């Protein structure tokens, strides 16, 4: 699943470490999410969306062909 996390994070001028601390996940998790190597749990996706005051769909892009 693709996402716009890196783009949104940079827009807001937040460092990976700061985002990781705010979401209570490791910095590596943020890195993996941004590189599309890891799909977050629904809970983490909600936490990310809430942090940026956005909806999950604004950040994560669901692609039908993945299935």
């Amino acid at each position, binding site marked *: 699943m693709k996402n716009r996390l890196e783009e949104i994070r940079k827009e807001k001028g937040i460092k990976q470490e700061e985002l*990781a*601390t705010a979401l*209570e*996940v*490791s910095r*590596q*998790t943020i890195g*993996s999410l941004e590189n599309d190597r*890891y799909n*977050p*749990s629904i*809970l*983490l996706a909600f936490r990310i969306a809430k942090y940026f005051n956005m909806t999950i769909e604004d950040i994560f892009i669901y692609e039908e062909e993945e299935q």
Partner: protein
Amino acid sequence: MKKKKNLLIALSGIVLILIGFYLIKAIADPQMIMKTLPYLCIGLGCGLFGDGLGEYISKKAIESDPKLAKQIEIDTKDERNIMIGNMAKAKGFDMMLYVYSALLLTFALMGISYTVIIPMVIAYLFVVGYSIYHRTKIEKSF
């Protein structure tokens, strides 16, 4: 309280090591279980000492650095880290099944006594059964 418990574990490890060395020195011609008991005491003592002292030192380090404590808590609870740990454990378990069955087959072909092979087969089946039991238990809980 927990730190005291860790120190006690480390201390009991030292006591076991000392008992082990004493038994080696004191018994000139060991018979039966006394042939292995001292070495068992030393082995167990070393394990307890290392574990107790390691836990004590790590708790002491965490206590003096709240930032480090928070980071460790985050890393432990991190969902990606948990997933990676579980995947690695699953791979290790799969490999253990292959290695263990190969070892059992080798022992059987070598003509090793049934008193060794049968408990090993029981242990193997117990581990497989335990895995199946938890699979059905976890399936029911979701």
